[in-house]
């Protein structure tokens, strides 16, 4: 079983890296991009003895307490059986 955790800065939190990437991408000639926000992506290989519910619970807690800082970031968890 696999888990994927996506961590992104909350809307409104300044993302200077995203802005710099946006600028570079426009210099390359790409147009029509309103905004780029940079985030983090984690892949977790899970023990197969976990149920999907248990995996969702524990990965959620991990995302909340370690992988993200809830003051500045939101997270999303996906579980793939």
């Amino acid at each position: 079983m696999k888990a994927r955790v996506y961590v992104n800065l909350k809307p409104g939190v300044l993302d200077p890296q995203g802005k710099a990437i946006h600028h570079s991408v426009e210099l390359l000639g790409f147009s029509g991009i309103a905004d780029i926000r940079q985030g983090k992506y984690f892949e977790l290989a899970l023990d197969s003895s976990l149920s999907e519910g248990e995996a969702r619970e524990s990965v959620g807690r991990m995302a909340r307490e370690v992988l993200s800082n809830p003051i500045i970031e939101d997270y999303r968890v996906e579980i793939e059986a």
Partner: protein
Amino acid sequence: MKFGVIVFPGSNCDHDAYHVISKHVGQPVDFIWHRDTDLSSYDAVIIPGGFSYGDYLRAGALARFSPVMSSLKTFAQKGRFVLGICNGFQILCEAGLLPGALIRNRDLHFICEHVFVRVATNDTPFTNELQAGVVLRLPIAHAEGNYICDDVTFEELKRDDRIIFNYCDKDGNITDSANPNGSRGNIAGICNASRNVLGLMPHPERACEDLLGSSDGRDVFRSLAATLAAVV
């Protein structure tokens, strides 16, 4: 009185802090390895600058899980004094001992220069030997020093006089152009509600000798020593 300086893998201002306490404050000080958990013999603990755990994940995020940190929480709850400098400030925020977070500088650069900071209040154990409003010249050296917090926290910090240092120009004016990293309200340092835990991005420990370009940082340590002399 006795000081401790916590050493994480990747701390690099630990010796500076130790030097200032032993030489300029003239008090006993120990290095405390991050796996140690007994803080009972210390009156004040410094969390020094550096790159604990290589700044992996987020600056200060992994240091929060070192064994010493749960002891540090108890230490702070008992009203003992904690000073977090630069990475130490980031660690205190990640650990929830101070509110808010420190994110990437607004211009993305690692900034290494002397800046001016205004002492907003001398009503703390770390600034009581200073005058409110005085301007210090201190070095900064960080890529993630952009202080951010929500509106409620910001109002609380202002209302309770918990913003201790603000970035300013040489005359003490708190302006956007004097803000090196984009910090909300030009915040350079804050304390907790009970005022015994202070975090700041500038490095007072690197500004204690004229040879190093400034000795303005000495007063922070002199204040803490004066506090301890009165209570210990």
